[in-house]
């Protein structure tokens, strides 16, 4: 049967990975015997097609309703549309581990195909490290989380899941499956996990490369360029994954929230923070030869955080809406985490002396010092996040008290750090390497303050919010102006250089500018996101009321009138209750909004889908409150007014755009 082939393919993958390790070791023993090394490499490359076979089979099983496979039963159902059935691949624990492993195989396949110039003393160790990772994940699949387990009906009447047929049982083939949790039946499910997983998995390449260099003690700075490039790619997808998650949460899941400081959200944020720190400090290393050991540590930590985060979300250790069900993989994962941490850190410490630092700092006011402080702040955020995540565990073990560490802790502790980071982000471009001075922008900064004043006054007059919010907004504007000023200066520089080398065309100048200002575009994205955060966190207004037909709700300057409820069935197995609301502002008609409640017949669960109206200035976000009885006559609605919410998404797009500019094309002689 198809499932058996899929499972067999996993065993072959396991065998290939083991062989790759063994062949690499033999090849090294025989002092770089090319045949063994090549064989190991080929074996590693061959893993990609075998896992692809396995995952293709699972997708076929999922989309064709083979409900005798336990996983298919759990996450799909007849009523689900095709693309959700495919997305259900990562909807449960075993399928998502298989997906993760498949991404791992793609990434390693691409790396070994594209990076032709890997030094031959690094290659075997890289293959070993990547193969060990593959062995671990495939082992998880084979031992504990087999996606191809079938359902067996025992004589006693119980149904069990397993791969081999228990004695006296027969195959159990349900007519329909449970279907994906309705909360997951959203476009976000199609994009957010793949992007996130891809980002996290990509970190294995720089880690493996670095480890290979450490082990072979060939720490010439060749690793810096390779690692920087791959970490940037990983960071791109991780950022994209986090932003998609936030957008998805805002759209459906989170009651107007885009980030809940949920432990598993934080588990994905922590590697992002250390990768961001690395991206900045590695520039200091390229420019001034600083922070070499620190950068190595950051790469080790980033990868450790990736595996640790995966461990936390799959072991049932953390209570979270994101967590997979309690599973036995926890112990295996924990051993793997400990192995990675102790081996990597041990290796770093043993090579510590040979990584001589040419640490020379000429002035406190210099870009490298600013980067050092920025790194310190990022690490500070990581400490705050990790401590908050793990504190409930420590509290329960040490004092036996169960506690929850919720948003108040994170908001209070991370806000000042973020503010300092934003400040550094704004001023660092104006502080040069080695010895910087602020004399250059004294004139411009006065001009910026002058520009800022009417904005502050305007905000106060229009009563945007309380004084604290206005100060925050003013601060964000100031950083925005600084960053735009930075881009302006870059343009001046490009034009000056263009005049010097008169053969520079406009297109070349633009390309050069894009390259050197790419980072600043990313920063602009950050500031726009900050505007969105300030708006939603500090200026949000919400109200919940029960209204009768034709009654109105007033929030800020908007009026919503309840016109009635329509109830109908859809072809994909849902019963929809849809409220019709008329929106107007100061007697001007603005349109209709339709918050609704979907009831899924197959899983007998409900989802409330909000109606959202977004403009540059604000979002109106309306939810049908379904735990109170509702009808055409009476309905309970919760309405949120979120100022500046759209800037979260605009900022995200600009952020990703800037990051793409950083990645492609490869840099020539661009300034940083």
């Amino acid at each position, binding site marked *: 049967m198809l499932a058996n082939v899929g499972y067999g393919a996993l065993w072959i993958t396991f065998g290939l990975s083991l062989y790759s390790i063994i062949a690499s070791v033999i090849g090294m023993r025989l002092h770089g015997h090319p045949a063994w090394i090549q064989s190991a490499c080929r074996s590693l490359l061959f893993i990609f097609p075998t896992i692809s076979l396995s995952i293709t089979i699972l997708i076929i099983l999922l989309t064709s309703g083979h409900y005798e496979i336990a996983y298919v039963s759990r996450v799909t159902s007849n009523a689900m549309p095709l693309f959700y059935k495919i997305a259900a691949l990562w909807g449960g624990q075993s399928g998502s581990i298989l997906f993760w492993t498949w991404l791992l195989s793609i990434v390693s396949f691409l790396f070994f195909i594209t990076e032709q110039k890997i030094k031959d003393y690094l290659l075997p160790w890289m293959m070993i490290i990547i193969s060990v990772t593959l062995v671990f994940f495939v082992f998880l699949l084979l031992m504990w989380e087999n996606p191809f387990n079938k359902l067996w009906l025992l004589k006693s009447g119980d149904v069990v899941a397993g791969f081999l047929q228990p004695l006296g049982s027969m195959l159990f083939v349900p007519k329909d499956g449970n279907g994906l949790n309705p909360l997951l039946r959203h476009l976000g499910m199609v994009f957010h996990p793949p992007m996130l997983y891809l980002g996290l998995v990509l970190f294995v390449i720089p880690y493996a490369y670095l480890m290979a260099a450490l082990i072979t003690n060939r720490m010439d700075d060749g690793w810096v360029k390779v690692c920087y490039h791959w970490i940037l790619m990983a960071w791109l997808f991780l950022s994209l994954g986090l932003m998609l998650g936030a957008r998805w949460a805002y759209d459906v899941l989170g009651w107007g929230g885009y980030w809940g400081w949920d432990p598993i959200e934080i588990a994905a944020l922590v590697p992002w923070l250390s990768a961001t720190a690395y991206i900045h400090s590695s520039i200091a290393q390229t420019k001034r030869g600083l922070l070499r050991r620190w950068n190595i540590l950051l790469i080790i930590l980033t990868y450790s955080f990736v595996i640790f985060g995966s461990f936390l979300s799959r072991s049932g250790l953390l209570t979270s809406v994101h*967590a997979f069900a309690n599973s036995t993989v926890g112990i295996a994962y924990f051993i793997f985490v400990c192995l990675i941490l102790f081996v990597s850190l041990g290796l770093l410490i043993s090579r510590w002396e040979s990584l001589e630092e040419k640490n020379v700092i000429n002035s406190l006011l210099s870009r490298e010092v600013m980067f*050092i402080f920025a790194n310190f702040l990022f690490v500070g955020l990581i*400490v705050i996040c990790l401590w908050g995540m793990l*504190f409930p565990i420590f509290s329960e073990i040490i004092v036996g008290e169960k506690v*929850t560490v919720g948003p108040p802790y994170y908001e209070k502790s991370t806000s000042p750090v973020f503010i300092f980071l934003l400040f550094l982000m704004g001023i660092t471009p104006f502080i040069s390497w080695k010895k910087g001075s602020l004399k250059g922008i004294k004139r411009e900064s006065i001009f910026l303050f002058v520009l800022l004043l009417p904005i502050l006054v305007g905000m106060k007059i229009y009563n945007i919010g309380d004084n604290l919010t206005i100060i925050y907004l003013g601060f964000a504007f100031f950083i925005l102006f600084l960053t735009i000023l930075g881009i302006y200066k870059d343009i001046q520089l490009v034009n000056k250089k263009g005049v010097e080398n008169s053969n520079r065309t406009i297109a070349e100048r633009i390309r050069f500018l894009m390259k050197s200002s790419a980072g600043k575009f990313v920063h602009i994205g950050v500031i726009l996101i900050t505007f969105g955060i300030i708006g939603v966190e500090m200026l949000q207004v*919400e109200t919940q*009321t029960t209204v009768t037909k034709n009654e109105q709700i007033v929030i800020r300057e908007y009026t919503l009138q309840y016109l009635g409820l329509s109830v109908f069935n859809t072809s994909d197995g849902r019963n929809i209750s849809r409220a019709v609301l008329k929106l107007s502002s100061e007697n001007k008609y603005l349109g209709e909004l339709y918050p609704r409640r979907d009831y899924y017949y197959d899983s007998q669960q409900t989802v409330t889908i909000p109606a959202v109206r977004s403009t540059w200035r604000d979002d109106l976000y309306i939810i049908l409150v379904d735990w109170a009885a509702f009808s055409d006559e009476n309905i*309970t609605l919760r309405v949120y007014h979120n100022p500046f919410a759209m800037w979260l998404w605009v900022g995200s797009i600009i952020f990703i755009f800037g990051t793409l500019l950083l990645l492609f094309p490869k840099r020539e002689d661009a300034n940083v």
Partner: protein
Amino acid sequence: MYNRAWIFLVLLLFNSVKANEIKPTPVNDNIVNAVAKEIYCPVCDNIPLDVCDTQACVQWREVIREKLSLGWSPDEIKNYFSEQYGGQVLSEPPIHNGVSFNLLIYLIPGIVLLAGFILVIKSIHSGMRRG
């Protein structure tokens, strides 16, 4: 989240209730939600009471409404919930009178950040000495 508007409204409500007569006053959804927002559902995963849709959460919101209408303050209600269902329903680890393990929630990051800052300054200084 900063919802000063709602804290203001709650205060307004209690100012309107005279000290020596506790008449049940009708409490609207928003005031209930403002308190429910700060209490977590004891049996769900990390969901505050104002958005939780289970039967149990509906009952708990009614408890909040009842207590509010009797004149209880939000803090008293939060204490009641934490006594009934354990400290994990609060969004922050509670600091019981004086010294408590939960002080560490802010103390440890503070100490670590301070130590880190000192380390950074030291290494910058040694870098400058070489320069």
